[in-house]
Protein backbone atom coordinates (compact mmCIF):
# COMPACT_ATOMS: atom_id res chain seq x y z
CA UNK A 1 0.00 0.00 0.00
CA UNK A 2 1.10 3.50 -0.73
CA UNK A 3 1.61 6.06 2.04
CA UNK A 4 2.32 9.78 1.95
CA UNK A 5 4.03 11.54 4.84
CA UNK A 6 4.22 15.24 5.53
CA UNK A 7 6.40 15.61 8.60
CA UNK A 8 5.91 19.35 9.15
CA UNK A 9 2.47 20.02 10.68
CA UNK A 10 3.07 23.79 10.68
CA UNK A 11 5.50 26.21 9.15
CA UNK A 12 5.81 29.96 8.93
CA UNK A 13 7.71 32.25 6.62
CA UNK A 14 8.22 35.97 6.28
CA UNK A 15 6.56 37.62 3.32
CA UNK A 16 8.85 37.70 0.24
CA UNK A 17 11.02 34.89 1.63
CA UNK A 18 11.30 31.33 0.32
CA UNK A 19 9.92 28.28 2.09
CA UNK A 20 10.13 24.56 1.37
CA UNK A 21 7.48 22.04 2.40
CA UNK A 22 8.49 18.41 2.66
CA UNK A 23 6.72 15.31 1.43
CA UNK A 24 7.89 11.72 1.32
CA UNK A 25 6.03 8.70 0.04
CA UNK A 26 6.33 4.98 0.02
CA UNK A 27 5.50 2.88 -3.00
CA UNK A 28 6.71 -0.09 -4.98
CA UNK A 29 5.35 1.41 -8.19
CA UNK A 30 7.76 2.80 -10.75
CA UNK A 31 5.27 5.00 -12.59
CA UNK A 32 3.06 7.41 -10.72
CA UNK A 33 2.01 11.02 -10.34
CA UNK A 34 2.53 13.42 -7.47
CA UNK A 35 0.52 16.52 -6.68
CA UNK A 36 0.53 19.47 -4.34
CA UNK A 37 -2.84 20.92 -3.38
CA UNK A 38 -3.45 24.17 -1.53
CA UNK A 39 -6.38 24.72 0.81
CA UNK A 40 -6.77 28.37 1.88
CA UNK A 41 -9.07 29.40 4.75
CA UNK A 42 -11.96 29.34 2.29
CA UNK A 43 -11.57 25.55 2.39
CA UNK A 44 -11.46 25.23 -1.40
CA UNK A 45 -8.93 22.67 -2.62
CA UNK A 46 -6.74 24.03 -5.42
CA UNK A 47 -4.18 22.10 -7.46
CA UNK A 48 -0.84 23.90 -7.27
CA UNK A 49 1.51 21.67 -9.21
CA UNK A 50 1.94 18.11 -10.47
CA UNK A 51 4.90 15.89 -11.33
CA UNK A 52 5.08 12.77 -13.48
CA UNK A 53 7.50 10.24 -12.00
CA UNK A 54 8.93 9.38 -15.42
CA UNK A 55 10.04 12.98 -15.93
CA UNK A 56 13.40 13.87 -14.46
CA UNK A 57 12.82 17.59 -14.84
CA UNK A 58 11.26 19.24 -11.81
CA UNK A 59 7.88 20.86 -12.41
CA UNK A 60 7.53 24.63 -12.04
CA UNK A 61 4.45 26.86 -11.91
CA UNK A 62 5.33 30.52 -11.47
CA UNK A 63 6.55 30.93 -7.86
CA UNK A 64 5.97 27.26 -7.08
CA UNK A 65 8.48 24.56 -7.90
CA UNK A 66 9.18 21.03 -6.75
CA UNK A 67 12.29 19.09 -5.90
CA UNK A 68 11.49 15.55 -7.00
CA UNK A 69 13.96 12.91 -5.84
CA UNK A 70 12.64 9.59 -7.12
CA UNK A 71 15.25 7.37 -5.50
CA UNK A 72 14.70 9.03 -2.14
CA UNK A 73 10.90 9.07 -2.68
CA UNK A 74 10.84 12.74 -1.83
CA UNK A 75 8.67 15.47 -3.35
CA UNK A 76 9.15 18.86 -1.72
CA UNK A 77 7.40 22.09 -2.67
CA UNK A 78 9.32 25.36 -2.81
CA UNK A 79 7.42 28.62 -2.67
CA UNK A 80 9.48 31.62 -3.71
CA UNK A 81 8.68 35.25 -2.89
CA UNK A 82 5.99 34.17 -0.41
CA UNK A 83 2.83 36.22 -0.40
CA UNK A 84 0.16 36.65 2.25
CA UNK A 85 -2.24 34.81 -0.02
CA UNK A 86 -0.05 31.72 0.22
CA UNK A 87 -1.25 31.21 3.79
CA UNK A 88 -3.03 27.86 3.60
CA UNK A 89 -2.90 24.15 4.27
CA UNK A 90 -0.79 22.32 1.71
CA UNK A 91 -1.39 18.67 0.90
CA UNK A 92 0.88 16.32 -0.98
CA UNK A 93 -0.86 13.54 -2.92
CA UNK A 94 0.13 10.39 -4.81
CA UNK A 95 -1.56 8.49 -7.61
CA UNK A 96 -0.47 5.26 -9.27
CA UNK A 97 -0.21 5.55 -13.03
CA UNK A 98 -1.88 2.17 -13.54
CA UNK A 99 -4.80 2.90 -11.20
CA UNK A 100 -7.83 2.85 -13.49
CA UNK A 101 -9.92 4.51 -10.78
CA UNK A 102 -7.47 7.41 -10.43
CA UNK A 103 -7.50 7.43 -6.66
CA UNK A 104 -5.43 10.01 -4.81
CA UNK A 105 -3.66 9.26 -1.53
CA UNK A 106 -3.09 12.37 0.55
CA UNK A 107 -0.62 13.29 3.24
CA UNK A 108 -1.79 14.83 6.50
CA UNK A 109 -0.97 18.36 5.40
CA UNK A 110 1.28 21.26 6.39
CA UNK A 111 -0.22 24.50 7.63
CA UNK A 112 1.75 27.44 6.22
CA UNK A 113 1.52 30.92 7.70
CA UNK A 114 3.01 33.81 5.77
CA UNK A 115 3.87 36.65 8.15
CA UNK A 116 3.71 40.28 6.98
Amino acid at each position, binding site marked *: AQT*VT*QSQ*PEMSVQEAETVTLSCTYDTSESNY*YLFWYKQPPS*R*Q*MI*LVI*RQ*EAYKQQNATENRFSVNFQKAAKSFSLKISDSQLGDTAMY*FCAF*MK*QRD*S*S*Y*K*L*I*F*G*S*GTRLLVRP
Partner: protein
Amino acid sequence: DAGITQSPRHKVTETGTPVTLRCHQTENHRYMYWYRQDPGHGLRLIHYSYGVKDTDKGEVSDGYSVSRSKTEDFLLTLESATSSQTSVYFCAIGTGQGASYEQYFGPGTRLTVT
Protein backbone atom coordinates in the same frame (compact mmCIF):
# COMPACT_ATOMS: atom_id res chain seq x y z
CA ASP B 1 -14.48 26.00 -11.41
CA ALA B 2 -15.54 22.53 -12.55
CA GLY B 3 -19.21 23.04 -11.73
CA ILE B 4 -19.31 21.03 -8.52
CA THR B 5 -21.79 21.85 -5.80
CA GLN B 6 -22.40 20.17 -2.47
CA SER B 7 -25.48 20.31 -0.33
CA PRO B 8 -26.00 21.05 2.42
CA ARG B 9 -22.93 23.15 3.18
CA HIS B 10 -23.42 22.82 6.93
CA LYS B 11 -25.41 20.33 8.94
CA VAL B 12 -25.84 19.51 12.60
CA THR B 13 -27.52 16.23 13.39
CA GLU B 14 -28.01 13.91 16.32
CA THR B 15 -26.39 10.56 16.89
CA GLY B 16 -28.36 7.75 15.31
CA THR B 17 -30.09 9.79 12.63
CA PRO B 18 -29.61 9.15 8.91
CA VAL B 19 -27.87 11.83 6.87
CA THR B 20 -27.47 12.21 3.12
CA LEU B 21 -25.00 14.55 1.49
CA ARG B 22 -25.34 15.42 -2.16
CA CYS B 23 -22.69 16.16 -4.74
CA HIS B 24 -23.77 17.57 -8.08
CA GLN B 25 -21.67 18.19 -11.17
CA THR B 26 -22.65 19.92 -14.39
CA GLU B 27 -20.07 18.47 -16.79
CA ASN B 28 -20.86 14.73 -17.01
CA HIS B 29 -17.53 13.50 -15.70
CA ARG B 30 -17.32 9.78 -15.14
CA TYR B 31 -15.29 9.66 -11.93
CA MET B 32 -16.57 11.06 -8.65
CA TYR B 33 -15.19 10.74 -5.14
CA TRP B 34 -16.17 11.35 -1.53
CA TYR B 35 -13.49 12.26 1.03
CA ARG B 36 -13.54 13.23 4.64
CA GLN B 37 -11.06 15.70 6.09
CA ASP B 38 -9.98 15.50 9.73
CA PRO B 39 -7.13 17.25 11.54
CA GLY B 40 -3.96 15.20 11.37
CA HIS B 41 -5.31 12.90 8.67
CA GLY B 42 -5.55 15.00 5.56
CA LEU B 43 -8.17 13.79 3.12
CA ARG B 44 -9.21 10.16 3.21
CA LEU B 45 -11.23 8.45 0.52
CA ILE B 46 -14.63 7.10 1.61
CA HIS B 47 -16.16 5.85 -1.64
CA TYR B 48 -15.80 6.55 -5.32
CA SER B 49 -17.75 6.02 -8.50
CA TYR B 50 -16.63 5.26 -12.03
CA GLY B 51 -20.05 5.52 -13.65
CA VAL B 52 -23.78 5.32 -13.09
CA LYS B 53 -24.47 2.55 -10.57
CA ASP B 54 -20.73 1.73 -10.46
CA THR B 55 -19.23 2.44 -7.06
CA ASP B 56 -16.48 1.06 -4.85
CA LYS B 57 -15.10 1.47 -1.36
CA GLY B 58 -12.24 3.66 -0.29
CA GLU B 59 -10.05 3.38 2.79
CA VAL B 60 -12.62 4.60 5.36
CA SER B 61 -15.93 3.26 4.03
CA ASP B 62 -17.35 1.72 7.23
CA GLY B 63 -20.60 3.43 8.23
CA TYR B 64 -21.09 5.03 4.82
CA SER B 65 -22.95 4.08 1.67
CA VAL B 66 -23.18 5.80 -1.70
CA SER B 67 -25.42 5.85 -4.71
CA ARG B 68 -25.13 7.18 -8.21
CA SER B 69 -28.31 6.87 -10.22
CA LYS B 70 -27.44 9.74 -12.56
CA THR B 71 -24.10 10.86 -13.95
CA GLU B 72 -24.40 14.26 -12.34
CA ASP B 73 -25.29 13.21 -8.78
CA PHE B 74 -23.28 11.24 -6.23
CA LEU B 75 -24.92 10.78 -2.84
CA LEU B 76 -23.19 9.90 0.41
CA THR B 77 -25.35 8.43 3.17
CA LEU B 78 -24.61 7.93 6.82
CA GLU B 79 -27.20 5.34 7.77
CA SER B 80 -26.92 6.06 11.51
CA ALA B 81 -24.65 8.98 12.25
CA THR B 82 -22.07 8.71 15.02
CA SER B 83 -19.93 11.38 16.68
CA SER B 84 -16.85 9.92 14.95
CA GLN B 85 -18.38 10.98 11.65
CA THR B 86 -18.18 14.65 12.58
CA SER B 87 -15.97 15.95 9.82
CA VAL B 88 -15.71 18.05 6.70
CA TYR B 89 -16.79 16.11 3.63
CA PHE B 90 -15.50 16.86 0.16
CA CYS B 91 -16.74 15.65 -3.15
CA ALA B 92 -14.40 15.60 -6.13
CA ILE B 93 -14.56 14.81 -9.82
CA GLY B 94 -11.76 13.41 -11.91
CA THR B 95 -10.99 14.89 -15.30
CA GLY B 96 -8.49 14.07 -18.02
CA GLN B 97 -6.23 11.05 -18.29
CA GLY B 98 -2.67 10.19 -17.50
CA ALA B 99 -0.45 13.21 -17.18
CA SER B 100 -3.40 15.56 -17.64
CA TYR B 101 -5.48 13.99 -14.90
CA GLU B 102 -6.76 16.29 -12.18
CA GLN B 103 -9.28 16.13 -9.41
CA TYR B 104 -11.49 19.13 -8.82
CA PHE B 105 -13.10 19.52 -5.44
CA GLY B 106 -16.41 20.85 -4.28
CA PRO B 107 -16.67 23.48 -1.53
CA GLY B 108 -17.12 20.92 1.26
CA THR B 109 -19.84 20.13 3.79
CA ARG B 110 -19.23 20.57 7.49
CA LEU B 111 -21.13 17.89 9.38
CA THR B 112 -21.46 17.89 13.15
CA VAL B 113 -22.95 14.89 14.91
CA THR B 114 -24.00 15.66 18.49
